[in-house]
């Protein structure tokens, strides 16, 4: 019961701020709304008995990713009124089609059922959630782990290559 109340609080805040992300005029306000949404998602992870995910979510998403967004907005000075988006016909189309998408997804969800056999990771086993994840990450899922490390390297190199100023040849 208490869990349910918490879930609804988190969910409502998450949805409202998600809507604020896509509707607010200034990217800065969008970023704030995004922070709130991401924190709610972290809270949802706690409801799903995954404190590790919640911590990682806050650490990586809220602590780093949104900061990057803010950096981009502030360094390029995009937050002010200079950049005005115009209303265009696609807005209506976009809203209608995403509502349509939502309805279809909802309909499919109502027809779905959880039939898969459950694994052995019950709540009792997951009491040491972090340790279990760590073990799995470095044994069974070592392959994606290594690929992700390559991916981070590539992203690092790429970001530097794309942005590094070459002897003042670029503007800005």
């Amino acid at each position, binding site marked *: 019961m208490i869990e349910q109340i918490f879930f609804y609080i988190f969910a409502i805040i998450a949805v409202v701020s998600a809507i604020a992300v896509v509707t607010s005029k200034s990217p800065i306000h969008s970023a704030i709304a995004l922070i709130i949404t991401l924190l709610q998602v972290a809270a949802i992870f706690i409801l799903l008995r995954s404190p590790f995910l919640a911590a990682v979510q806050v650490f990586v998403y809220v602590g780093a990713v949104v900061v990057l967004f803010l950096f981009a907005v502030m360094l390029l000075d995009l937050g002010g009124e200079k950049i005005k988006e115009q209303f265009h016909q696609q807005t209506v189309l976009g809203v209608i089609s995403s509502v349509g998408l939502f309805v279809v997804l909802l*309909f499919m969800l109502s027809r*779905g*059922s959880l039939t*898969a056999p459950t694994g052995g990771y019950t709540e009792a086993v997951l009491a040491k959630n972090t340790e279990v994840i760590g073990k799995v990450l470095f044994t069974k899922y*070592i392959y*994606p782990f290594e690929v992700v490390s390559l*991916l981070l390297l590539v992203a690092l*190199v790429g970001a530097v*290559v*794309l942005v590094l100023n070459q002897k003042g040849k670029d503007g800005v």
Partner: protein
Amino acid sequence: MEMNIGRLIPEFIMLGGAFVLLILEFFIPKGPRKWAGVFGICLSVVTAVVLSTQGYGSALSGLFIHDAISLYFKLLFLLVTALIFYMTILYEKNIENWRGEFYSLMLFCTVGFMFLASSSDFIGFYVSLELVAITLYILATFTREKSKSVEAGLKYIVTGALSSGFLLYGISFIYGTTGQTGFTEVAALVINNGGNGYLAIGLALTVLGLTFKVSGMPFHVWAPDIYEGSPTPITALLAAGSKAAGFVVIIRILLTALGSVRAEWLVLVSVISGASLIFGNLAAMPQKNIKRMIAYAGVGSAGYLFMAVAAASTLGTGALMYYLTTYVFAITGSFIALVIFYNSEGSYTIESLAGLARRSPLLAITIFIGFLSLAGVPPLGGFIAKFYIIAAAVQQGLWALAVIGVLMAVVAMYYFLIVIRSMYLRPAINTEKIRVDNYTRILLYGINAVTVLLGMYPGPLTDWVMAIADTLFV
């Protein structure tokens, strides 16, 4: 947990090369660097040799597999990489501020392709796909002095990330249906879930996400802009490598993991196939820029390849591999010719190709053969491939698709012939001869010969691909 790290030696060789190039970059002044390209080509050849000696089997707790399909596709990727490295050597003088990271990023991209071909698990597959995608975003934007290149990169990353989101959401529901992420485990558990709504969501979004990666309808919108704006070697990489990589995972996911619920995805894949065929080929007709035209033609090709997937048979899958092989040769051959042309002319419009036959018969014949192969004219490789695919569709009773396929082959002939007419029948605006150096000459002769041979003697390759395809349907 078995690790068998030895099975990853080919990937390690490529990665080692990528790291070496990355580190050497610190010590070498900026500017063109032919040797890096040559190094990449040698590396691809060495890797291909090592790869062919590898035994089949799995590694890294079964998440990495090496089997006949991955062998075939990896060889294909290495071939593409070697050819595109060659293309880059020719292309690099066009770029001011040339930075050598380009070569190492291309090697990372190839490693990503190889990982994709070997992934046997949704998680491994997803991260490999993202490795490839992120590398390609960077490469497409690499010539950031050019306004078109950055625009292409931005469009690519927005649409690419959107499709990754779809894919991921779809995968999450497939995982929800089965509780597993390994392809074979999913295959075993998915059978009884025919009417499950979770599976329907998972399938639809996964297929849509993958459609983007191979530039099929309805997510093709990105393709022309990105092809036009990217540096030309990357356009070729997107056209040939990315498409092949996309289809190897489509084979793995739709045929291996979800093959048992073909009834669920058949309609969707058929619609995508038909729509891509019709739209891609019709939209290619009015194009003025060759890169854009090839992009739309690529959408059409995705249609044929999806048709082969929809057939879900030995013949279809074999034909798919055959098609990709001929496609790779046709695309890389034409693009190398186009790069040489661009080096002297600075343009990719169809008009500017006028009179190319007189200015450089070799370039003209290469583009001629490449495009006719893409159009599927006998006796070139592309014809055999299209023939097999349509035969597979007919064999499986996909009559409507087969008819569309035949009709669109005719349409494709039309727009490729426009280019050929321009090259052979129009008078040249600029009559200056275009010089082709001897290595390139040999290479282009070789590629043309392969394309013709694939059409005249399809036997050996057909036997090989059909044998591989057979392993999927036992």
